[in-house]
């Protein structure tokens, strides 16, 4: 099954995302910020990365840039979690190389639908 790296500094969001994705049969790994995610991403490969944008230590935009610079993640879908109000953040994410975004707040069904969209 497809493996997903979920990155968010908020434990409740992370739990929700993981619970939902695991429930749908995905293999999910958690990271609490960009720095940790980058470490994990270097040691293991993923089919999809879902990352929050505002995080301490390393934010989602920087993480996206760093991942795109790594050969194994050149074409890996990367989705950012953003709020509706931050149109410019969506675009900043894209500019950094993100595939797309999931708008917060979202419910488990919306999350799964979006994940399905990129994982096929």
């Amino acid at each position, binding site marked *: 099954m497809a493996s997903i790296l979920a990155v968010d500094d908020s434990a409740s969001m992370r739990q*929700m995302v993981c*619970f939902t994705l695991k429930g749908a049969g995905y293999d999910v790994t958690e990271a609490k910020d960009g720095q940790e995610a980058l470490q994990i991403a270097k040691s293991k490969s993923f089919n999809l990365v879902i990352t929050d944008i505002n995080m301490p230590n390393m*934010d989602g935009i920087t993480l996206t840039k760093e991942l795109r610079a790594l050969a194994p993640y050149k074409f890996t879908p990367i989705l950012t979690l953003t709020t*509706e109000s931050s*149109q410019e953040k969506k675009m*900043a994410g894209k500019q950094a*190389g993100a595939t797309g975004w999931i708008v917060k707040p979202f*419910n488990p069904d919306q999350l799964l639908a979006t994940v399905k969209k990129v994982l096929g």
Partner: protein
Amino acid sequence: MQQFHQTFFEESFEGLDIMENELLNLDLGNTDNEVINTIFRAAHSIKGGSGTFGFTAVSEFTHVAETLLDEMRDGIRPVTQEAVDILLRSVDIIRGMLSALSEGGEMDADAIAKGQAELETLLNAGDTAVETPSDAEQASGSVDGWQIEFKPHPEMLKTGNDPVRMIKALAELGELDVQTDVSDLPALLDLNPEDSYLGWTITLKGDVAEAEILEVFEWVDDECDLAISPLNAAPETKPEQPETAEQAGPAAAAPVDTSTQAPAKEPAKAATTAAKKSGESASIRVGIDKVDEIINLVGELVITQSMLGQIGGELDSEQGHENHQMEKLVEGLAQLERNTRELQESVMRIRMLPISFVFSRIPRLIHDLSSKLDKKVDLVVTGENTELDKTVMEKIGDPMVHLVRNALDHGIETPERRVAAGKSETGTLNLNAYHKGGNIVIEIFDDGAGLNKEKILNKARANGLVGENEVPPDDFINDLIFHPGLSTAETLSDVSGRGVGMDVVRKNIKAVGGSVRVSSTEGKGAMFTIQLPLTLAILDGQLVRVGDETYIIPLVSIIESLQVKSEQVNAVAGKAELYKLRDEYIPVIRAHSVFAVGDANYSLNDRLMVVVEGDGAKAGIIVDDLLAQQQVVIKSLETNYRSVSGISGATILGDGTVALILDVPGIIDMFRGDANPVPPAPIKPDGSNIAEQAA
């Protein structure tokens, strides 16, 4: 979603604490962008989480605060004292909303509306452009299908967007006819495999809204040429087309200016946070019930270990050292004891938290109070890493807040008065914590006016607590402030001075086995000293024998032990017996009769008496023998049996027997209810025979 609520609440409360502390840390003239960013992130997480978990009210309110912070972060809005104050109030409101949600209470709708209005007024005052989300217009009109010209830019694949997925998604909308345009495909030698060269003309048949098609291409509308036209044109959708093309224009332009400022900010940010984070240690969140279960199990283990130790000791002395196996067993048991002790200590430490959890509430309190009271106060905190048990910590928060309020309200003077008294304009409040023996000591001292002894004494005389002509020692006068119903504030304020504070402070501290004292120098300041046990799970006990039973008296409540001389005993009305201990009379409690062990009708002469103190009252408990002093693991009697008056808990001794732990204040109370004619202490000394010391 329910299962995530607890985590959400916990992290949100933590986030609010962070916001509060960082807001108080903000240096108005010279704001640190990283501090604002930290505050913003906390607000942002609360907003995101509350939206996701369905707490719309919280999310909406936090959104307004977040917008304000976002503008500060982007440097559009100056960081003013007013804004900080409003944000601090918002933190309170959000905290109130979350508490109401987590504990099932009512939200304060007025406060929320008021806070929101404040925020919005501030936001609109700056009159910054309100961002309107540019949602794609809903195309209307029924169509037979669409013709889609889709030509990805060469670099589209590099964002992880695969054209095949989009075509698949379109196929789910209706019947699809796809023509591939390979005209741009270069010769194999010139082909860069990471670029996209193909284009597609797609005919989608069916009643599909244009928005649905746009959604498929939502993420790539700046990375491809896209033209969508209806198959049999409904006239009103025609003008849509240039609009979509235009939409891609500004959207693509927007990132340019953000990206120019982003790299400049990013490295500095990363550096400062990395430095900050390295000092913190990683932690995991565990339910307190799990920790308590471990503590309980380790308690059992300690008991089992001491049982084994006892048996091992007996065997050893019986068989001597000739037996090699025996020697090994004894060695093993000794090692087991060491390991068990260490395990117990480590487990206890899990429950220990630094007192900064309580101290961190104080800066905000001082910020609010000093502006309310027009006083200038510096806070000096030392020993904030001193650890104590979480349960004790929860009990100490409110009393400490009360003492700090008092210090600010009654202790530290207004700047004018301070200057007049030859002091600096700004008062200082010190918070200090340190370990002393098995206790934690917390000191709260200020350099204010100190306690007004004259006023306290007058009030006490008026209340009949002190006789008209009596002049008690200073310590006694100071201690009177803990008496119910004594408040010396000239005018009652909403800060303190309701006169029901200090006695409650003392009561709450006593409830967790602690004590509070005050010392003061008039004109120089006052110091409150709180002493608390480090933990409520273990206790230093004096084992005593009563008949065939073993009881435990908490060591902290024991003053001395002595042998009774019958001439010092007075029987009052043939019922209560009083013992003349130096200059005061204390009631004599026969443990045998309290616990109905053996015959209680014995002569008191030469009996062993343990003098104890609880809740300010003394008493002498008659026991048969003093045994060992040891640390015991407290087991709740209530959860295992039921509450028994005079007993605070139980423990299991090394030999496997249960020993009850005496509730000293409770026993003294029981005795008072039993035998009312106890003369009020202290009784004036008559100078005759001083009682002898013993044990």
